[in-house]
C-alpha cells in the first residue's frame, strides 16, 4: 500500500503524537477545574490516533494499538453507569458523587472525586465512538 516516501510526516508524527496525547490527558484530568473534560479529551486522543492513521495505514495502526473500539465504547458506558449506579449501594440517590482529600502512601494527599470516573467513561466512549466511525468508513471499499 505504501508507495510514497513519507519520512518527514512519519517522523514528525512520532514526536507530535506524544505531545497530543499528553495534552489530551491534561485536558481530561484538568476538566473539573479548567476548560476541558472527558469529551474534548477523548476527541483529542482520537485525533492523535487519526494522525497515525493518516501517516500509516489501518492495518499498521491496528497492530500498534490492538484495541477493539466497540469494546472500548462499552467499557466507557459501563464506567459511567457504574459510577452512577454505585451511589445506590451507599443509600444515596442515583448519580450522587463523592469526593474528598485522601492520603495515599506514595503520592501523598490527593483530592479525588468520583466524577472523574464518570468522566473517564465519557472519555472512553468518545474515543471508541470516533474511532469506530472513522475506522469503519476507512475500511469500507
Amino acid at each position, binding site marked *: 500500500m505504501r508507495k510514497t516516501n513519507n519520512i518527514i510526516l512519519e517522523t514528525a508524527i512520532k514526536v507530535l503524537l506524544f505531545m497530543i496525547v499528553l495534552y489530551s490527558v491534561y485536558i481530561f484530568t484538568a476538566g473539573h477545574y479548567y476548560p476541558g473534560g472527558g469529551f474534548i479529551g477523548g476527541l483529542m486522543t482520537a485525533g492523535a490516533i487519526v494522525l497515525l492513521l493518516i501517516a500509516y495505514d489501518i492495518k499498521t495502526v491496528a497492530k500498534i494499538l490492538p484495541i477493539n473500539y466497540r469494546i472500548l465504547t462499552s467499557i466507557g458506558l459501563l464506567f459511567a453507569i457504574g459510577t*452512577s449506579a454505585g451511589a445506590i449501594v451507599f443509600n444515596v440517590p442515583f448519580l450522587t458523587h463523592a469526593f474528598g482529600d485522601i492520603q495515599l502512601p506514595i503520592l501523598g494527599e490527593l483530592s479525588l472525586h468520583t466524577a472523574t470516573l464518570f468522566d473517564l467513561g465519557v472519555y472512553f466512549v468518545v474515543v471508541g465512538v470516533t474511532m469506530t466511525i472513522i475506522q469503519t468508513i476507512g475500511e469500507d471499499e
Partner: protein
Amino acid sequence: MSYLHWAIVAPLFLSIFIPIFYKVFRRIHTGWFVLPLPILLFVYFLSFLPVTMSGKTMMESMNWIPSLGINFTAKVDGLGLLFSLLITGIGALVVLYSIYYLAKDKEKLNQFYVYLLLFMGAMLGVVLSDNLIVLYAFWELTSFSSFLLIGYWYEREKSRYGAQKSMLITVFGGLAMLGGIILLYIMTGTFSVTEVISQANEIFNHALFVPALICILLGAFTKSAQFPFYIWLPDAMEAPTPVSSYLHSATMVKAGIYLVARFTPVFGEHSLWFWLVSGVGILTLIWGSIFAVKQTDLKAILAFSTVSQLGLIMSLLGVGAAALHYEFLDDNIFTVAVTAAVFHLINHATFKGSLFMAAGIVDHETGTRDIRKLGGLMHFMPITFTISIIGTFSMAGIPPFNGFLSKEMFFTAMVHVIEMDIFNLETLGILFPVFAWIASIFTFVYSMILVFRTFTGKYQPEKLDKKPHEAPIGMLISPVILVSLVIIFGFFPNLLSHSLISPAMASILPSLLGPGEEFMVHISFWHGFTIELFMTLGVVILGIILYKTHSKWKKIYQAIPDKLALNRFYDSLLEGVQLGSHKLTKSYMNGSIRSYLVYIFAFFIFILAATLIGKNAFKLDTSNVSAIGVYEVVLAIFVVVGSISILFVKSRMTSIILLGAVGYTVSLFYVLFRAPDLALTQLVIETISVALFLVCFYHLPKLRKFETRMRFRLTNALISVGVGAMVTLIALSAHSNKLFDSISKYYVENTYTEAAGKNMVNVILVDFRGFDTLFEITVLAIASLGIFGMIKLRLNRRKEG
C-alpha cells in the same frame, strides 16, 4: 350471579363446549347438544309469567365496573319477557329445524352452533339488560354473531358481500346508539334504563335531548332494517335458511323494535319521536311491500316482506307514543296502537319464521328458490304447501289467522291518527291510513305470489336440479308448530292478551298506569261493520285484481326500481369513499420528502403565527439588551455571508467549505462569549464533520455528479423565509418576556462547595446534571454502532454475490 344471569350467559357458556362435542361425538349431529338449552331457557322464562302478569318486575344486579356505574343488571318486565320467550322459543325450533337442514358431514357444524349460541346469548342480554352499557355490549355481539352467520358459507362471494354490508350498517347504527347512551348519561348521570325513565320529565327540555333521541333512533332503525337502512337485510339472505328465519325475521331485526319500545317512556312525548318513528315506519312499510312484489327469489320476497312488516310495527309504536299525550286511560284510543304493535310482533315472529322454514324446505328439496323455475309443487309437498298457505294468509291479513287480527288493529290505530289534534295531524294525519291501506294491498299481492307461484301452476321439472319430494318429518316439526301457533293465536287471541300483551304494554307506556292498574286488552274477531272491515275488504278485492293482472303491470317495475334502489347508492358510496380516501391519501402522501418537509414547516409557521397573533404574544423589550461590540458585528457578518452564499454556490465542494467556515466562526463566537469548553468541542466536531462531508462528496456516484446550482422554488423560499422570521420573532418575544431570574446563580455559588470543581460547565455535565450526559454518550455509542452495522452488514450484497 343469580339464576337470571346464568340464564342470560348460558348460551355463551355452552358455545365453549360445542367444538368439543363436535370433535368427540362425530356420529351425532351437534345440534342435538344445543337443542336442550333453548327449551330449558324457554321453560325457565315461562316461570316469570306470574311475576309480570301481576305488574311486577324482577331485578337482579351483579357488579361489573361499579366505579363507572356499569353493572350487569338484569331486569325482567313484560317487554323483556315477551322478547326472551320469542328468542328462546323460536331459537329451540330453529335449532331443531337446522338439525335436519344442515348435513352432518358436509357443513362446519361446530362453527354454526357456536355462532348461533353466541347470538342467542347476546340477544337475551339485549332484551334483559337494564344497564345501557351492558345492553350496548350485547347489541354489538348480536351484530358480530350475525356477521359471522351471514358469512357462514364464506367461500361464496355474495355471502361475504352481504356479511360486510350488514356489519357496516348495523355497526354504524350501534355506534350512533352508543353516542345516544352517552348523551343520556350526561343528562341523567345514570346508565340504568329504569332510572333514565324516571327522570324522563326532567330531561325533556335539555339541549342534548334531541341529539340523544336521534342517535338512539339511528341505532334502532339500522338494526331493524328501516328505511333507508333496510338494504342490508335482502343481502343477508345469503345466510343459511335457519339463520334467516331466526335472526332476520324473528329476533335480531326486532332488537330495534325493542329499543324503540323500551325508550318510548323516555322520548315518546317529543313530536320528533312521533314523526320519525311513525313516519319512517310507514315509509318502510309501503316501500318494502312495493318492492317485495318485484322479487323473484323466495327469500328475497320474504326479506322485503320482513322489512315492510317491521315498518308496520315501528309505525304502530310511533303512533302508540302519541297516547302519552292523553292522560286518561279509560278513553285513550291510541293505546290500541301499542297493543297492535305487540300483538303483531308475536304474530310476525310466528308466521315469518314458518314461511322462512318453508322456503328453506323448497330450496332444500328442489335446489332452487327462484319462483320463475318453481310451480306446481302442491302435489309433491302437501305439508309444506299447507304451512306456506297458512303463513302467507296470515301475513296478508286474511281471516281466520292471527295476521288478520293484527291487521285490523293496525287499521284501527291508523284511522285514529286522523282524530289526533297534535303535531299538525289534523291535516297530515290522513296520509297514515292511506299509506297503510296501499301497503296492505301490496302485502296481499306478494303474499299471493309467494304461495301460488310456488305451489300451483305449471310444474316445470326440466328447470329443477332435483326431483322434488316432501321434506323429512324432522324438518317439518318446527314450521308446523309455528303455523299451529298462527292458528291458535288466530282463534284464541285473548290467550296472550292478559299474559303477554298487557304486561308488555305496561312496560312501554308505564306513565299511563296508576298503581295496581293494568291494560285491559281484548282482541275480538268481530267488531261490527267498522271502517277497518271495509278497508280489509278493499285490500282483498284490489289485491286479487292486482294479483291476477300481475303479469301485465309488472313491467312498470323495470322502469322505476333501478333508479330508486338504494343498493346502488350504497355501493357507489362505498366505492366513492374508498376511491376518495385513496385519492386524498395519494394526493398528499406522494413519497417525496420535500413535500413532507413543506407540510411540516408550513404547519409550523401557521400554528406559531396563529398563536402569536391570537394570544397577542409578540413583545419587543430592549431594556436588557447588552451592548454590541465590533467583534460581534464582524463575526455575525461572517456567519450571514457564509450561510447565504451556501445557497448560491455552484460547486458542492465550495458549500462544504463554506459550511466549515460558518462552523468555525460559531466556535469563535463561543470564544467571544466566553465559553471555552464549547469552543474547543465545536472546533474539533466541526473538523470531523467537514471531513465526513468530504468523504460523502468524494463517493458521490459519477453518473449524477452534475455541478449545478440549486434551483429556485418560490414555495421553498417562502417557507424558509417564513420559518426564519417565525423563529426570530419568537426568540425576540421570549427574550423580552423574561418572567423570572435564571437558576444559574445556584451553580455559581455551589460548584466548588458542593461538587469540588471550578469548571462550572464540566461540573454541571458530570455532576449536577450527569444523567443527561449518561444518555448522550449512549446516543453516541448507538450512532457509532449504527454506522458500523450499516457499513458491515450487507445482506443484499451477500445475496447477489
